């Protein structure tokens, strides 16, 4: 029995206190700003109506994404001898991370689970999610639905990466952290909507809304954030980053809002829905804008390779700092 309770807690039966505290502390400033901008809320009405007219819930994502369904790439053979899912912490299915789904296990197998070394498989899983699934602002749908659609929000993409990793036998967990946006993203995510803008200004940074998946490979946790596909990064003029690298679209706020967990807590995705409703018009516009940026990025990458593109983008100086004794020896030499 105690084992079951601890498993339920690990899998997110209760919302962790730091996360709940972050949500609660956002309510005050958000309500105040909403009250200041009733007009912004009113702008959403046609967008709610549009969904209701199609007999969908007002926050539904309307775009048909069937053509992006990745089950299409799976053959019958891919479903044979699927990797076994172990009921162990960080390896078992959790809320929104359906690593036991046959489709997820099949893609894990296809990407090299059990065939490649752990690190090779982890890199392949990361690369596949980053390249095949797109950032789409919509309600959270979980790993399996992301697999079957164009993509999802950042947290959903983390779920897909974690699910594939777990299905392939690599322990995976989530880590949320505080962040502030770098310029292009700040202009896209924050500036257009006065409610988002002013809430961000009041809070100073974003907490509990973004994170990374951590994969346990060869004795260490390696972080990965596959949210931005290569085309999106290129369209924004940012380097394309891989497993273990820090994406350039945001800056991590050191020591702020770090929360690690195995599974998304109950009600997490439901708590996001009111936020989505408040900014629905902006979300619809954002998806169009992001598609345009991806197109621009695609054009950039058609003219070069990712390696060449990254070489240019990462052409910044990362100096090797000499040791104290090397510096002392150097100074001794020049002072002679």
């Amino acid at each position: 029995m105690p084992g079951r309770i601890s498993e339920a807690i690990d899998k997110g039966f209760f919302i962790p206190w730091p996360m709940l505290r972050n949500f609660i502390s956002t309510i005050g400033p958000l309500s105040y700003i909403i009250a200041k901008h009733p007009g912004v809320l009113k702008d959403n009405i046609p967008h709610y109506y549009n969904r209701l007219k199609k007999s969908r819930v007002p926050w539904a994502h309307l775009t048909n994404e069937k053509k992006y369904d990745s089950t299409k790439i799976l053959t019958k053979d891919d479903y044979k001898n699927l990797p076994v899912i172990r009921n162990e912490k960080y390896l078992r299915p959790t809320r929104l991370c359906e690593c036991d789904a046959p489709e997820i296990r099949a893609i894990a197998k296809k990407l090299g689970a059990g065939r490649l070394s752990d690190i090779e498989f982890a890199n392949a899983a990361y690369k596949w999610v980053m390249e095949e699934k797109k950032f789409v602002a919509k309600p959270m749908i979980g790993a399996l639905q992301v697999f079957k659609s164009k993509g999802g929000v950042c947290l959903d993409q983390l779920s897909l990466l974690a699910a594939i990793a777990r299905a392939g036998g690599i322990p995976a967990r989530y880590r949320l952290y505080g962040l502030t946006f770098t310029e292009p993203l700040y202009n896209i995510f924050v500036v257009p909507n006065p409610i988002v803008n002013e809430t961000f200004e009041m809070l100073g940074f974003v907490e509990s809304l973004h994170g990374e998946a951590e994969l346990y490979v060869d004795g260490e946790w390696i972080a990965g954030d596959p949210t931005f596909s290569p085309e999106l990064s290129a369209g924004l003029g940012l380097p394309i980053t891989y497993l273990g690298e820090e994406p350039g679209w945001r800056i991590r706020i050191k020591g702020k809002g770090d929360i690690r967990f195995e599974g998304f807590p109950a009600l997490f995705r439901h708590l996001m829905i009111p936020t989505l409703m408040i900014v629905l018009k902006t979300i619809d516009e954002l998806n169009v804008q992001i598609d345009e940026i991806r197109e621009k990025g695609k054009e950039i990458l058609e003219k070069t390779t990712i390696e060449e593109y990254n070489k240019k983008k990462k052409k910044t100086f990362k100096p090797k700092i000499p040791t104290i004794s090397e510096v002392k020896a150097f100074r001794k030499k020049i002072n002679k």
Partner: protein
Amino acid sequence: MQENEGILWKKANEMFGKPRQQWKTVDEMIYGVDNYYNTAKDSYKIRNKSIIEAFDFHYKNNLFYNQFCKHRKLSPSNIKSENDFHKIPMIPDSFFKDYPSENPMDVYNWLYQVSSVEIGKFDFKGKKLQNFLEWAERRLKGIVLHSSGTSGKFSIMFRDSDTMKRLFHILIKLVMFHITKPVSDDIHFVYPGTPKTYLAMGHALGTASQIFDDEHKHFLTDRSLNMEIVRLMSSGKAEGLKQKLELALLIKAMAKGQYTLLNLLQNLEKNKKQIVLISFPFQVWDLMDIMDKKGIKFNLGDTNSFMATAGGWKIYSHKKVTEEEFARRVEKMFGIPKENYRDAYGMSEMNGLALSCEERYKHLTDWIYPMVLDDEMEPLGFGEWGRFAFLDPAGYGYPGFIMSGDKVRLLEKCPKCNKTGIVLDSEIKRIGGAEARGCGNLMRNLLAEKLTS
């Protein structure tokens, strides 16, 4: 410059000057020139010589820079003239955040490893970085300053005492003697900040204000603006009771400070005193909103008072105010004519400034060699937008060859005025991947509620 030969001018030279025999080539441009914007046509020759001299110095005295140059197969023999300057290896500004931790010992060791000069011995016993900075000012051979740290990590840099003196001298000379004339020896220096900080420009301004006696300088508070508070201001979010209390006190002090400032300005105006007011654009804008509501207007132009701002133009979160619009409102509310109001652009790592002219083009001081780089870090020509980079021969503590995260456009000369110096377009943006928010937004976060209307 006859007009400048007052007590303050002399004090600036005495306190932050250097005997001529100790000058390096760059000092001829810093100490040897009264007006930074009316320089000889061939001043670029001295600038170029200064850059070659500084490059040679850092190459020979700084192991990490020496190794970096060698990695690029470069040595002083490759840098002979201005045509070679684009080859000089540049450090990204993010480099100054690369120290391993905020443990004072780690920071000291890192500064030791990346500095071009002997920084002094470490015998600091404390655990807090803020206390280390205070200790460093007393015990090291220079000063350790930090940036606003908007991403939660501060840029930290060591300036040797000669470089620091240059910065103080440049700052006070630009702010006090390059905006208007005449400057009375009875002028009042008003800075609604605190001198007790190690935030780079705040500290430099606080120290440079030592040319005034206590009666003639006015700060918003003498409370210390330590790193913890700067971090709080930057994020606007407090954790724990102590931080919450500090933040509440700070917000209260900020709001109260605006009214204290109004009272001070009213008193100085009543006594017909010339004033130099130095502030952030958002803070002055907020003050003007208060004045509007209270029906207060000044006629500070009558005493030839002037104003300088710095720290960025993000006044409203979703509305832009141009420098031109700002200057018009300053004229309307303070009675300070637009030619007596200027905005400055600078970086914590740079020993120089760009001060706007009456037509709002930002004139760089002559010793800074500016560049605009494309995505591949190759130099672009004048008139093109790109990443701002500069070669600063006034810095000897660390190599002042730096790439910023700012997106700018450079013009070879000002299209509107006769002042010398390469100019920056008044609109300065941020490059993709650079931190979106900068120094001037620190305090702005605290007044965000008031400013977002």
